[in-house]
C-alpha cells in the first residue's frame, strides 16, 4: 500500500477517496457507538485507512489531530471485558455545544458584539454565529479593534478548563497554570504560575512572544488564587519593586503627559498646577534606577522636584545623553 499523502494530499488523486469523507464517517461512527472501538475495528469499518499497521497508526494520528483542531476530543477507554485492548469514542458532551439557553435579546446582543468588535489576525469568530444561532446583523462601524493571535484561543481554553499550558518562551519550555488573559497597552498577556520556575512565582507572559505552539494538559488541574487582580498583574509600573525601601518623589509633569503619568503614579497624590500647566505628583518609588530612566524619558515634559539625591542622578543622566561633560 502506498504511503498516504500528508494533510494537503487528499485532492491529488482522482481515485483516492477524499480524506474528508473518511473523517466525516469517523466522527459519526465514534459519536454513535456506545462502547469504545479499537483502532482495528475502526479501520475495518471506515473506508480509506491503510491496512499496514504502522501506516494505519500514522493515518489515525493525523485524523485525531484534525479533530482536535476542530475542538473534538476522543476518549480513550478500555472496552468492557477487554484486558489489553483500548478503544476510542467521542462522548456527546465533548462534541455537542451544550444548550446555553440564550434569550433572543441575549443572542442579538452577542451578534452586535461580534459585529462591532474586530479581532485582527489570529483567532476569528469562525462559525460561532451559526452555532449559537445568532441572528445576522448589518455591517456596523467598529467600536473596538484588537489584535488577535492564533495562540489566544488555545490559551483561553486552557484558562477556562484550568488545564496547564505548555509552551516555549524566551528559549525555555514552560508549564504554566494560566489564571487569566489580559489585554493591556497593545499586547495580550497570560497571567499565571510557571510550575517549572523556582518559587513558582506569579508571572506575566506576552502572548506574542510565545515561540511555536501551545499544548494543554489535564483539565481541572489547579485552582485560581482567590482575589487575583489580573489588571493589577499587568499594570506596567517601571519602578515597582518588592522588598525595597520606598523613596517619596515629587514630580511636575506637563499637561500633554499628565494623564499617563498620573495613571502610573497610582494612588499617589495628584495636584493640578496653576494655569493648566500640568500636574504635580507625589508618590513612592521602589526601584530608583527604573524611576530615573522613566523620568528622563519624559524629556522636558517633566521636572523632578525632590528628592535632591535623585535630582542629581537625573541631571547626570541627561548630561550623558546630551553629550555634555560633567
Amino acid at each position, binding site marked *: 500500500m502506498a504511503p498516504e499523502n500528508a494533510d494537503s494530499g*487528499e*485532492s491529488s488523486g482522482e481515485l483516492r477517496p*477524499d480524506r*474528508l469523507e473518511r*473523517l*466525516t464517517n469517523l466522527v*459519526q461512527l465514534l*459519536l*454513535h457507538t456506545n462502547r469504545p472501538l479499537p483502532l482495528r475495528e475502526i479501520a475495518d469499518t471506515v473506508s480509506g485507512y491503510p491496512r499496514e499497521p504502522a501506516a494505519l497508526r500514522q493515518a489515525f494520528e493525523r485524523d485525531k489531530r*484534525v479533530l482536535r*483542531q*476542530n*475542538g*473534538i476530543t476522543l476518549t480513550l477507554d478500555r472496552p468492557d471485558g477487554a484486558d489489553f485492548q483500548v478503544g476510542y469514542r467521542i462522548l456527546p458532551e465533548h*462534541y*455537542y*455545544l*451544550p444548550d*446555553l*439557553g440564550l434569550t433572543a435579546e*441575549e443572542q442579538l*446582543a452577542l451578534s452586535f*458584539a*461580534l459585529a462591532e*468588535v474586530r479581532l485582527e*489576525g489570529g*483567532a*476569528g*469568530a469562525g462559525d*460561532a454565529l*451559526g*452555532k*449559537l444561532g445568532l441572528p445576522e446583523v448589518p455591517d456596523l462601524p*467598529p*467600536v*473596538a*479593534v*484588537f*489584535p488577535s493571535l492564533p495562540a*489566544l484561543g*488555545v490559551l*483561553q481554553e486552557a*484558562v477556562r478548563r484550568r488545564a496547564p499550558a505548555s509552551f516555549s518562551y524566551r528559549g525555555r519550555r514552560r508549564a504554566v497554570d494560566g*489564571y487569566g*488573559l*489580559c489585554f*493591556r*497597552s*497593545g499586547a495580550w498577556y497570560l497571567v499565571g504560575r510557571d510550575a517549572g520556575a523556582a518559587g513558582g512565582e506569579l508571572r506575566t507572559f506576552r502572548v506574542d512572544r510565545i515561540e511555536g505552539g501551545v499544548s494543554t494538559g489535564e483539565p481541572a488541574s489547579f485552582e485560581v488564587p482567590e482575589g487575583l487582580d489580573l489588571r493589577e498583574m499587568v499594570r506596567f509600573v517601571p519602578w515597582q519593586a518588592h522588598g525595597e525601601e520606598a523613596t517619596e518623589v515629587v514630580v511636575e509633569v506637563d499637561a*500633554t503627559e499628565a494623564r499617563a503619568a498620573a495613571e502610573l503614579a497610582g494612588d499617589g497624590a495628584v495636584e493640578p498646577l496653576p494655569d493648566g500647566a500640568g500636574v504635580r505628583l507625589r508618590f513612592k518609588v521602589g526601584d530608583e534606577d527604573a524611576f530615573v530612566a522613566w523620568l*528622563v*524619558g519624559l*524629556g*522636558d515634559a517633566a*521636572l523632578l522636584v525632590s528628592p535632591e539625591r535623585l*535630582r542629581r542622578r*537625573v541631571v547626570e543622566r*541627561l*548630561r550623558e*545623553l546630551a553629550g555634555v561633560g560633567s
Partner: protein
Amino acid sequence: MTPVVARYPGPAAPDVAARLRRLLAMLAHLASVGESTIDELAGRFGMLPEEVVAELELAACCGLPPYTPDELIELLVDGDRVVAERVGELGRPTRLTPAEGFAVAAAARALLTVPGADPTGSLAGALAKLEAALGKDRLVLDIEAPEHLAALREAAGAGRQVEIEYASAGSSAGAGPTVRRVDPYQVVVREGRWYLDGWCHRAGGVRRFQVGRVLAVRETGEAASPPASPHPELDEPGAFVGGPDAIRARVAAPPAVAWLLERVAHGPTSEGEDGRVEATVLVGSERWLERLVLRLGPGAEVLEPESLRPVGRSGARRALERYEIT
C-alpha cells in the same frame, strides 16, 4: 443530483481541518433550518456555489455502518434548493472551537468594558450563560476612559460636527493645544486607546485624534459631512495616520532595554552587529522619537534617517535647561 467531478484545485484550497469544520457547521445548520439554497449556504459559509455542491455530494456518501442507503446522510439537491432529509448524529452544532470561544468572549468582554456599557444588560447575561457552560473566561481588556469620550461618541453617533481643543503629541516645543473643527467619522477603541477619526477642517484631510489628548469638546450645531467612505489607511491593522510627516525610523538600543523597544517596535526586532537590538518604529512626531531615545537611555540611538539622528541629544539638552533654571 448533479455529478461533480471537480475537486478543490491548487494551493489555495482549504486544508481538510477547515473543510471538516465547514461541513459539520453546514450540516448542523441544514438540520436546524430543514431547507436552504446553494447560494445562501455559499454566502453563509464563505464558499463558492460549486464548492457547496461538491461538499454536499461528499456528505451524502457518508453515514454509519453498514453504509446502506438508509444509514447514509440524506440530502436532496434540486436545482438551487437543498433539503436536509436525514442528518443524524451531525445534525446539532459542535462545541465552539477554541478560536470561536475566544472570539465570542473577547468581543463581549470588550463591549462590556466600553465606558457606558450596561453591566446588567443582555450582553452581560449572555456572557454569564457562556461562562456557566464553558467555564470562566477570566478575560480582562484594559480600555481607557478618557474624559471627553462620551461627548465625542454621542456627536459621532448622531452625525454632528464638533470643535475640539487638542493637545497634539506632535506639537513643537512651546506650541500649545490647537482648536480644530472636525466632522467625526467614527470613535473607535484601538488596542485599548480611543481615537476619533474624522475630517479635520484645519488640516484639510482625514485625521485620527487620540481622545485622551482632547482637552475640550464643543458641538458647533452643524451637521457633520464626513467623507463618504473612510480613509483607506484608517481601516488597516495598526493604522497610523500621522499626517504627511509620519515616517519610519530605525532605532538601536542595548539588550538590557530590548523589552522596552519591543513594546513600540513596528514588526520584529533584530540583533545588530554590535550586539545591540534594532527595531523599526513609526514616528508621528520628532518629539515622540526624542523621548523614546531618552527613555532607552545611554547606548540607544537613531540609526536612520540621518536627519533624526540628533534628536536624543537635543532633547536631553532641552530637558537639562529646565533643571538649570530651577
